[in-house]
């Protein structure tokens, strides 16, 4: 027998001195739909963790073999009873069971060991790769940092998506909402943003947290698999509260995510957190509130539905240098019904965030992917968080695109258009083609600069609209293989200096000369 184990047991027995304390308890009087009513618990706090004593009547051996405990959250402190939301298997809670007050508000363990892992809403690993010994726990409900603790958002977070980085730039510490109907590519934008962080230098690379709320487990499994294949799990944590989990888990998962994010932010790291999606969190919270008999308001949501999201999203911040300068960038996702951005939950979240990326189902169906409606998408941080290089080349693109969309609609009714209008439409078509991007193909910002610079300066005006994407790919390959120094300079300086711009123009000329077969359209008809 192992002497070490024997000595350890002897030591534990010698030092063992159980405390005698009167514990505050209550008795379960009613259990239904994931909520139980407990009589007693006279000193329980709001959001306090309550432990259900499932050891009653069970033998010691049985308890050691199955040591799982069931925890609840005290959410309604009423005159006669305390209503507790069960965070676990409801079928194990019985009437007459003892509920113990823990004296602690709900906390989750936090650790850097969570990177690369898939967790549940209470930060327990569910990927079968073993448990994690976390030395620290943090309360999931925490007040957001105040004004004086923050600094302005001025560092870009590159998504790798041309349409976003050029027209709707996101900064580290910003909250940018991704909103659109079902199957318009919202999750794809979020995942591509995570994948693009691989292009960032390791010391500046943000830690990514993907919170899946109410999603199909097959979808989450596919996302984890994609992240693993692309090497993104090395810097990503996935928190999953699937559709099959209790409403309480779907309500808590985003808070668990931001609690883990704050742990990293306070160490001076940048964090990117994606909430996919907050509409499902709102529905889960509505379900819980109705079961707790809280008065329903508009669309049966409880009165504090705005506060549910505002207190979550306000915890995303960019801290000042005194607090180590870390940040949390949030990309919450909201699903609309039939493009209705004026519904209750979408308008709530739009008013909280620092901008929105609106995905249009019509654009998606026409083949414009990502289906970003640049007209109503906005980033309130704007060019303050945009790399100088991209700022220089992308200045006019939003306006040109907006003009094109207007003319495109007009074109359906008018047959004979004047030459100027025709040119604007042709130019706009090519810009729209340039902004198309395949999923899971994020582009480093230096390549985006080359691509957009070429488009804005008329390189693709001589290319058939249907061949623009192919031409862009050839251009990027050409620059990557034969003029790599241009990309390296842009990446290093984060700017497009005059000398670099000249080199780029020369490279583009060489490309035109060596690829004459692509340029089949008369440029005068376009530009």
């Amino acid at each position, binding site marked *: 027998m192992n002497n070490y184990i024997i000595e*350890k*047991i002897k030591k*534990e*027995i010698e030092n*063992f001195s*159980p405390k*005698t*304390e*009167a*514990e*505050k*308890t*209550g*008795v379960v009087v009613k259990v239904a739909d994931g909520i139980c009513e407990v*009589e*007693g*618990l*006279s000193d329980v706090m709001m959001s306090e963790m309550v432990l259900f004593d499932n*050891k009653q*009547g*069970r*033998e*010691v051996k049985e*308890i*050691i073999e199955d*040591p799982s405990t069931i925890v609840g959250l005290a959410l309604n402190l009423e005159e006669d009873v305390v209503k507790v939301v069960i965070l676990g298997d409801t079928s194990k809670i019985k009437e007459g069971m*003892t509920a*113990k007050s823990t004296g602690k508000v709900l906390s989750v363990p936090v650790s850097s060991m969570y990177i690369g892992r898939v967790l549940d809403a209470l930060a327990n690993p569910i990927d079968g790769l073993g448990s994690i010994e976390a030395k620290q726990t943090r309360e999931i409900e925490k007040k957001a940092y105040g004004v004086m603790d923050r600094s302005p958002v001025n560092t870009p977070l590159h998504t790798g998506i041309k349409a976003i980085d050029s027209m709707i730039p996101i900064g580290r510490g910003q909250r940018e909402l991704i909103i659109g109907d079902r199957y318009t590519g919202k999750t794809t934008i979020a995942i591509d943003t995570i994948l693009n962080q691989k292009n960032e230098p390791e010391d500046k690379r943000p830690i990514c947290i993907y919170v899946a709320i109410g999603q199909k487990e097959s979808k989450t499994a596919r996302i984890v698999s994609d992240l693993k294949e692309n090497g993104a799990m090395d810097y990503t944590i996935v928190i999953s509260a699937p559709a099959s989990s209790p409403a309480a888990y779907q309500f808590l998962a985003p808070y668990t995510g931001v609690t883990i994010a704050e742990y990293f932010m306070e160490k001076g790291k940048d964090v990117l957190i994606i909430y996919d999606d907050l509409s499902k969190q709102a529905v889960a919270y509505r379900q819980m509130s109705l079961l707790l008999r809280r008065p329903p308001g508009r669309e049966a949501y409880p009165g504090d539905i705005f506060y549910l999201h505002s207190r979550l999203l306000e915890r995303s911040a960019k801290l000042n240098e005194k607090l180590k300068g870390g940040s949390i960038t949030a990309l919450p996702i909201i699903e609309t019904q039939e493009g209705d951005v004026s519904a209750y939950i979408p308008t709530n979240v739009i008013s909280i965030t620092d901008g929105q990326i609106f995905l249009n189902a019509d654009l998606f169906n026409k083949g414009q992917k990502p289906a970003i409606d640049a007209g109503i998408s906005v980033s309130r941080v704007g060019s303050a968080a945009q790399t100088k290089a991209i700022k220089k080349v992308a200045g006019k693109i939003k306006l040109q695109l907006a003009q094109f969309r207007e003319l495109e609609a007009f074109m359906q009714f008018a047959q004979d258009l004047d030459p100027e209008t025709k040119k604007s439409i042709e130019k706009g078509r090519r810009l729209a083609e340039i902004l198309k991007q395949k999923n899971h193909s994020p582009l480093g910002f230096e390549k985006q600069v080359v691509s957009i610079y070429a488009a804005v300066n008329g390189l693709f005006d001589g290319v058939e609209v249907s061949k623009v994407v192919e031409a862009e790919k050839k251009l990027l390959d050409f620059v990557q293989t034969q003029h790599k120094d241009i990309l390296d300079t842009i990446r290093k300086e984060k700017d497009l200096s005059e000398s670099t711009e000249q080199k780029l123009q020369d490279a583009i000329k060489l490309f035109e000369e060596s690829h004459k077969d692509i340029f089949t359209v008369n440029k005068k008809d376009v530009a």
Partner: protein
Amino acid sequence: MQVAKIYAKALYDLTKKARGEKQEKIFNNFVNLLKSKGHYSLMPLIFKHLKLLVEKDKLDNIDLIVAKENDFEKYFKKADNFKKHFYPKKEIKKVIDSSIVGGFIIKTKELMVDKSYKRSLINLYNNIIK
């Protein structure tokens, strides 16, 4: 429903401390009050809630849980001290639960003192495997 519950609670609180003639007087006054307010039809419901309150109070004892019959006398004094300190008016009820192995548990609706061998063994086991 809520009104009947409130009436039942008020009547119960008054009659709990009263005895004999006083109890009868309270009850008569109660019936007259209901009639004057037009709530006499709630009587069946009020009695139903009153019955629940009486039964609940009976359950609200101090449970002294021990592993075997002999331990009850052994730990009765501890339970008695607990009763004198926290709940002087409640009764101590004996509960035998062999799964606690030994020691005792004093349990009421709001407080619990767990000095059972079961808890000690489980805590010891958890400390060893940490």
